[in-house]
């Protein structure tokens, strides 16, 4: 019997298809790669849109038919809160409200009103915001008063029109990067170790399939899954929370290319972890050593410029930092792939390094 020409492509695709189905049916993959990032995006998407507000308690006996109060009401930053005096004092002490305002008409004539403000040590920053808002409000009112002297200097303000950088624009690329990291590391490590321990791989080796087909098939399945995840996250972010996609579809495609590159690097980590771990229960601790620092230090939630200076070199050594950075530049600044070649280069160096390790430690049985 003549054996028909064996197709390695068919074998690779068979594994990719099987692996993809298996991923979709495994709750942990879906939770970590899809649900987690989505929850963060929803949470930050909602709290992020409000901006800064200063909560000001309005005293019960305060005058409310004066120009100062009326102007303050029109300012978005100031949010007035009513309540009884005692409760308000307590809230002020605890920093739950940022100041208490009490405006009184002067019975003796001029000045027409006294604006009494009580600030709190518990909320100094917002206190100073209120302070400058108040002086900005009172100054022109006083200037309009009849016998005020002519102004010495007049303030002329212009604001350039910039793109609004929303919280979602920062959070979404970070979450996308982290989803890729966890799919790459946890997913891959768990799958390969369980395939090894349950002798699935050994059984595969009794068929003509090659090792390259097995690794490639698994990689293809994860890349396809990750791209679906990425598209889903981007679409939800864009339509539900106004995530900025400067060049529309081109931006999305650039993001997907970066995601694929990032995932390939992270798959290397996963393969290395599966080789180092002796059994399935050793996967989470080892995988967490890789993912957790990157989760916290790679600018997933906070910009790394907010970190103390001794921590920054560590942040700047991690691959996820560069993926996040590149994703943000592409999405918000409309950078092309060439504009982020520095980030891509560092990811590639990480990729070469980790695959060198993976090849050394990876075990087939």
């Amino acid at each position, binding site marked *: *019997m003549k*054996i*028909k020409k*064996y*197709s390695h492509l*068919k*074998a690779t*695709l*068979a*594994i990719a*298809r*099987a*692996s993809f*189905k*298996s991923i979709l*049916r*495994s709750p942990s993959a879906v939770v970590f790669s899809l649900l987690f990032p989505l929850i963060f995006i929803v949470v930050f998407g909602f709290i992020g849109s409000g901006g800064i507000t200063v909560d000001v308690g309005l005293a019960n006996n305060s005058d409310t038919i004066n120009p100062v109060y009326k102007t303050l009401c029109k300012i978005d930053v100031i949010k007035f809160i009513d309540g009884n005096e005692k409760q308000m004092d307590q809230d002020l002490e605890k920093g739950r409200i940022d100041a208490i305002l009490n405006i009184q008409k002067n019975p003796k004539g001029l000045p027409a009103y006294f604006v009494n403000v009580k600030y709190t040590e518990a909320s100094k920053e917002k206190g100073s915001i209120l302070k400058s808002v108040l002086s900005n409000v009172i100054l022109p009112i006083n200037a309009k008063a009849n016998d005020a002297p002519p102004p010495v200097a007049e303030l002329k303000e212009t604001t350039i029109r910039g793109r609004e950088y929303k919280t979602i624009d920062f959070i979404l690329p970070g979450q996308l990067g982290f989803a890729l990291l966890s799919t790459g590391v946890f997913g891959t490590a768990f799958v390969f170790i*369980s*395939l090894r321990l*349950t*002798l*699935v791989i*050994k*059984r*595969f*080796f*009794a*068929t*003509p*399939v090659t090792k390259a087909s097995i690794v490639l098939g698994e990689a293809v399945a994860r890349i396809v899954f990750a791209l679906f995840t990425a598209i889903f996250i981007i679409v939800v972010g864009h339509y539900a929370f106004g995530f900025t996609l400067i060049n529309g579809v081109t931006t999305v495609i650039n993001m997907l290319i970066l995601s694929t590159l990032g995932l390939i690097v992270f798959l290397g980590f996963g393969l290395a972890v599966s080789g180092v771990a002796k059994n399935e229960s050793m996967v989470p601790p080892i995988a967490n050593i890789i993912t957790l620092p990157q989760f916290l230090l790679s600018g997933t939630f906070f910009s790394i410029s907010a970190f103390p200076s001794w921590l920054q070199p560590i942040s700047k050594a991690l691959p996820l930092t560069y993926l996040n950075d590149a994703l943000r530049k592409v999405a918000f600044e409309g950078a092309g792939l060439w504009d982020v070649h520095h980030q891509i280069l560092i990811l590639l160096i990480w990729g070469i390094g980790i695959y060198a390790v993976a090849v050394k430690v990876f075990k087939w049985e």
Partner: protein
Amino acid sequence: MEKSIIISVGNLVKNYDKFEAVKSISFEVYQGEIFGLLGPNGAGKTTTLEIMETLRDKTSGNINIGGYDLAKNPNEIKHIIGVQLQAAGYYPNLNLTELIKLFSGLYGIEVNAISLLEKVSLTDKAKAKFKELSGGQKQRFSIATTLINQPKIIFLDEPTTGLDPQARRNLWDLILEIRSAGTTIVLTTHYMDEAEILCDRVAFIDNGEIIGINSPDQFIDDLVSSGFERKKEVKKANLEDVFINLTGKDLRED
């Protein structure tokens, strides 16, 4: 009729560091027979089997399977053999039909999953996951996966270990059926009654050496003619016959 040799093993040696697991064993398997490798745990049965299955490297020796030299053409051999491993699992989260599809992809062929499952009477489990099957069903499925590439030879490593008497008999019928379709079968087992019923010839392996190859009948006759007698008088039935008689031959799957 001249029996043609389908497997020949010559002076096979396998060392693990200093431990000699297999010490220069030689045997032949004829086309269309059921050949049993018998022996205690650690005797080298599984090692020998896995070397023939191309899963383990030999230290030295010549092996020819279906006309292919194992050292030169392991890939051609993979195409003509089917392998059932002891206690092997299957790709997680997939149902039986999907697993068969996966394996046919690995062999690069098209297979009708349902007709394959029909052969091992598992059509009603086509959409079930492997881990949801009973012990006997799991073994039947394992055997089904060995048949995907329509192999000339299948290797079964302790196929009936851990099964209840009904499932065991059911599996024997399946193995005999596969043989009658022309497939050569090499199996290992700890159960001598099983070897006696299934195997045309058996090889006893102990400490990595073959200490006898013959048909079960011949082995028994030789032992009897040497003057051996059982301590207890042999009755016309044993306890397993009682078990089957009382509980029936029907498969119990759950």
